[in-house]
Each structure stands twice: as C-alpha cells, then as structure tokens.
C-alpha cells in the first residue's frame, strides 16, 4: 500500500494542472471568504436630495433643540449617498441605475417635526424595480434606517413630553414665546391644600370639599408618576429579550462562514480526488494486475482514502490558517481543528471511492462526484423553518446519509465550541458505510 501511495503522489506531482487546481482553488476560496467577511456588506447607492434650506436643519420642541442633520447622518451609515440637486435629477439617477433608490427629504420636514407630532412629515423614497433582488436589499436597508430614525425621534418627543409632565407634577419654570412662567406643580399644590385643610375645623363642609380636591390631586400625582413608563411603551411598544439556544449559541457568524467555506472546499478536493484516482486504476488497466493479489481490494481502497484524505486535510488546514489571517479565530482550538479536518476528510474520501468504484471511469466519476456533492452541500445548509416540516425532515435524512453535514458540524464545533463527538462518530459510520459500498463496487471493476 505504501508503494501505491507513493506512486499516486508521484502521479499527482506530474499533473501540474491538477495540483495547481488543488492548491489554487481552496486558497482563492479562502482569500475571497476572508476578504468578504472582513469587509462586511457594501452600502447601496442612494440618490439623496435634502430640500430643507441650509441652516434650517434644527427645530425646537418644547424648548429642546433637535438637530435634523444628526438623523440624516444615520442614514449615511447604511447607504452610500449620491447627492443630487433636484427631484428630476434624483429620478434620473434611479432610472439610469446609477442609484438603486432615491431619498428625498421635504422642505417642510422641520416645520412639521417642530409641531411635536401634531403634523407628520412625509419622506419620498423612489426605487428602481429593474432588479427585484437589489430592490429588496435597498428597500429593507432604507426601511430599517427609517424605523431607527422614527424610534430615535419618538424617543426625543417622549423626553419632551416627560419634561412637561414633570413640570406639572413638581412645578418649575416654563419658557414659552420667550417669557418664563412659574408653574406650581401638583405636588406643591397638594401640600398647600393639605396645610389649608388642617387649619379648618374637623367636620366643616369647607374642609370636606377641600379633602376631595386633595384626594384628586393625590390620584393625579400617582398616575402621572406612571406616565413616563407609559410613554416609553408608546415609543417602543415591543421590547425584545434575545435568548439563543442550541450548539451554536454565542457563535459568531464569521466562524460559521469559515466552517462552511473549509468544509465545501475539502469536500470538492477530497471527493473528486478519491473518485478520480480510484477510477484511474481501472482506466490505466492496472486494476487487473493489482487485483491478482498484489494489493488486496480493501488495501487499494484504504490507500485511495488515505491519499485523498491527506491532500484534503492539508488543504483544509491551509485554508483555516489562510482565513485566520483575515478573521478572528480561536487559535487555542487548533488541535480540535486538526481532528475535525481529519475526520471530515476521511468521510469525504470514503464517499469519493464509492463514487469512483461505481462510476469506473475518471470523467464519469468526476462528473458524478460534482453533481452529487453540490446539491448535498446546498440542502445541508437549508435552515429549519425555511421550508415545511416534511420537506425539512427529508432534507435532514438526506443530509445525514452524506458526510457534508456531519463534517460541517464537526468543523463548526471545532471552531466555535459545542459537541464534536457526535459528528465525529457520524463520520466514522459514514466512512464504514461508503467503504463497504466501494468494496462491493470493485466486484465489477475489472
């Protein structure tokens, strides 16, 4: 088996195109994914027209100055603004595709906002419907930013309203139209009334009437004390408490993306190599010589699995190290990476030899390997809830039959934590099962 392994490595060394593909392909994937993850999503280009006259971006609500530019800037964090001079230009930018959408801030926005919510200003948003995917992307980005701006503004209005209520409760100075007014406040009024009531004779009709007013003032104080919380509920009716459960809790998106990238690359390298190298033994007619007792059939399969797994494991580790240069990964878990990579590679290699044994020709084996691997990887990434339960159950069963899902789980666990033993055991079972299929396929291999 040692000599066969050396022979295969020698053949690989003399196939520069194949070796280049085996090295360049995963390195390119690693660089692309690392770059994509480290850069984050790009901002959509949005034509931006602000019709508010210069210097009038701020407004006053109940004595509190609110700067409108502050909210406009929040939009610019999520979009790439393309400044335009007028509405026609904004429409043209969207129509020509230079901008995915246009956002027009009306001139009366400041005036309407300064009414403190009595009048509602309207923002104009224009989308280009040519590409539904892009439209959906920019629409959701703008809607999300608008929701955030609405929430921020309503929070500001709530603060102003709370100040008024505080003034009503505790009293103080109120500024209106440039003049200051002293407000007594309910609590002070109640205290004064209680003093007056105490000075009146018990049982007198004046004291009885005054006590009713004091009782009402108490009720008003108690309920207005709750108004701040009530206003908070109005500005943000739903409060979200987030709890994550399952193996992937606290798992960063980057780690999962790295696990997916490495597992997919390893799968292609390993399955194609194992399938191709086994089928090559038949295409070179060498199998008939080997099968005479020079190498046992099981030995031949073990050699092919070892060869493909070795190459894929090296590729997998190289990818992890490459991606690690871009993305934060826990290098302390390196031994677990090695374990996951080795088991995953063995699982893929066993699938590869089964394909090679069944297909019997290198080209057919390569095509078979590719056509099988791609959908297996895609369906294994379908999240629960994305489809109906019956279909999802079928997907789970199909995913469990092939090594991609357990390999991904093992890689994910190795990178981010979680139970690794079960996916490794799953992979061992699949190695045995696909090894058995490959062994049976060799009966008609000669």
């Amino acid at each position, binding site marked *: 088996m040692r*000599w*066969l392994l050396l*022979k295969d490595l*020698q*053949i690989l060394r*003399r*196939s520069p195109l194949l070796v280049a593909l085996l090295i360049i392909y995963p390195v390119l994937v690693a660089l692309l994914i690392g770059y994509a993850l480290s850069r984050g999503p790009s901002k959509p280009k949005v034509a931006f027209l602000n019709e508010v006259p210069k210097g009038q971006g701020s407004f006053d609500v109940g004595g509190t100055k609110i700067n409108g530019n502050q909210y406009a800037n929040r939009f610019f964090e999520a979009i790439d603004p393309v400044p335009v001079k007028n509405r026609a230009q904004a429409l043209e930018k969207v129509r020509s595709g230079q901008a995915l959408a246009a956002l027009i801030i009306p001139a009366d926005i400041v005036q309407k906002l300064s009414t403190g919510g009595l009048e509602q200003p309207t923002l104009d948003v224009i989308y280009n419907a040519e590409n539904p995917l892009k439209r959906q992307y920019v629409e959701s980005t703008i809607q999300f930013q608008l929701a955030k701006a609405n929430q921020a503004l309503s929070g500001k209005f709530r603060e102003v309203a709370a100040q008024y209520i505080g003034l009503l409760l505790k009293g103080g100075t109120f500024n209106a139209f440039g003049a200051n007014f002293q407000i007594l406040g309910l609590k002070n009024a109640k205290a004064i009334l209680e003093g007056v009531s105490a000075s009146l004779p018990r049982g007198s009709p004046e004291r009885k009437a005054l006590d009713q007013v004091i009782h009402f003032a108490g009720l008003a104080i108690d309920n207005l004390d709750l108004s701040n919380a009530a206003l908070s509920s109005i500005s943000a009716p739903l409060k979200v408490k987030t709890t994550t459960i399952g193996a992937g809790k606290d798992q960063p998106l980057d780690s999962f993306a790295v696990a997916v990238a490495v597992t997919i690359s390893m799968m292609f390298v390993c399955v194609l190599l194992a399938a191709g190298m086994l089928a090559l033994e038949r295409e*070179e*007619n*060498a*199998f*008939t*010589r*080997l*099968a*005479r*007792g*020079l*190498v046992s059939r099981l030995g031949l399969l073990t050699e092919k699995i070892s060869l493909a797994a070795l190459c894929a494991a090296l590729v997998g580790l190289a990818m992890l190290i490459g991606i690690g240069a871009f993305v934060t990964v826990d290098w302390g878990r390196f031994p677990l990476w090695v374990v996951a990579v080795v088991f995953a590679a063995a699982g893929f290699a066993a699938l590869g030899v089964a394909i090679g044994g069944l297909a019997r020709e290198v080209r057919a084996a390569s095509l078979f390997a590719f056509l099988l691997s791609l959908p297996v990887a895609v369906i294994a990434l379908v999240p629960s809830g994305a489809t109906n339960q019956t279909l999802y159950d079928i997907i789970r069963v199909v995913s469990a039959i092939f090594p991609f899902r357990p390999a991904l789980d093992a890689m994910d666990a190795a990178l981010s934590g979680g139970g690794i033993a079960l996916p490794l055991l799953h992979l061992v079972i699949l190695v045995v099962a696909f090894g058995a299929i490959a062994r049976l396929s060799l009966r008609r291999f*000669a």
Partner: protein
Amino acid sequence: MSSATRSEPAPGATPTPNAQRPTPPLTSPTLAGTTVATEPSLRVDDIGMRYGDLVALRDVSFTAKPGERVAVIGPNGAGKTTLLSILAGIQRPSSGRISLDREHVGWVPQHAAVYRKLSVAENLRLFARLEKVPDVEDAVQRMLAQTRLAGRADDEVGTLSGGNRQRVNIAVGLLSDPRLLLLDEPSTALDPRHRERVWEFIGERAETGTTILFSTHNVGEAERYADRLLVLADAELLFDGTAAEFVALAGDVHDVEAAFVRFLHARGH
C-alpha cells in the same frame, strides 16, 4: 499466496456432466512432432464460469508443460479473456479446479496495464516492489535489457509508441520471473514490425522454460507462434492439439485460418 503448487477448488464447485471426463494426458506433441513427458506447469480441470444466467465457460480442461506455447483462439465472446483472467487469479471460477504455482504466474493483459504518468523504470520498479521481487533494481535492469528499452527507461510510458508500451506491459508480467506467462491478445493494435519483436521476445522466454499461454484473434499468428491450439467457442473447449492436427481435422483445407472457419461453420458458428 504460497510458493508451493496448489490446487484451487472453485467456491461452491459442483460436478458438471463432463466432470468424469478423463484429464488430458500429461504428454503432448510439440511442433517438431516429438513427445516429451514432463510435469505440467498448468492443469485445468473442468472449470466453468457463470455471470448470472450467462455461461462464459463450460467444463474446460487442459494442461500445459514448461516451455510450451499454447494459443487460445476462438470467435468474439468465446470465453478467451475469461479463461485467462481466471488463470491469472483476477476472477474465481464458478466451478472446476486449477493447479498452478500462483506465485510464478505472469500476467499480461490485453491493454497495457501500466501507469502513463510514470517512466518505464518507475513502472517496473513499482510492480517489482508489489510483486515482492527480492532484488528490485536487478529485476528492473534485467527487464529493461530484455525489452531493449534501457534507452527509454526515464521516459514516461505515455510518451511511448503502442509497441513499446506493450513491451513494458509484457516486461511487467515477467518481473517475477514466472514459470507460466499468460498473455491476453498481446499483439493487438501493433504494427507488423512491433508484432514481430513481441513474438520474438515471447519466444525467447519460452526457450528458457517459461510456459506461454496466449489468446489471439489472429489464427495465422497462433499457427506460427504456438506449439498447441485451444479452440474455444460458445464457452466450450472444442479442440486441443497442434495446428497440423487442426488442419487435418477440418479436412480439404491447407491452412489453419481456413480450417478454423470450416471448423466453426461445421459446429454452427
């Protein structure tokens, strides 16, 4: 694999109607017409091969002596390759018994069974190691010299002509210095010059005492290079004897090719 001569009963072998047929005598006429009594290096008793309902071989029996060249001829689908692959140990027969020294059997498949990306020497070295030849380098040099490929030892097999590739193929079959060499249509797809070289090479091996058993479609080649003919048709061995006996059996013909056609025609082929 043991080095001792052994009999290989087929798994689940069952007696066939011809199982009681006496084994052919251990003596056989040579081309020169003399009879030499020698222990056979190969004895085949009533072997049969089935693939489901398809019968590929039915109760085939024969022997071959050291240094003897035996040609297996027959129409397409007669069972020639099946017979040779059973003798080579690639397949196990459904029934019957084979006696040969498995460790000293050389196998040359019809299509060159060598790695195109490896050089001539690397191929020889690899198979010598797999055959567990005691002195690998000596065996490689010996085969390079015998096949007259020493000058192309470092060339990748993929760059060789079909004839040279076939010589490498035969050299690999001879690495273990076999006492029985099995060749499946060794001259197919070779030009006359290369064919001549291959037969010359095979003849030299026979002179050293190696038993040669080869299949061929070329009846003329069988007549020229074999001491004995085995004629297979429809999975059965229909004739076992010399070319002269075969021509005589057919009657009123002067060459083996005409005899072959008449022989098969008379049997409904």
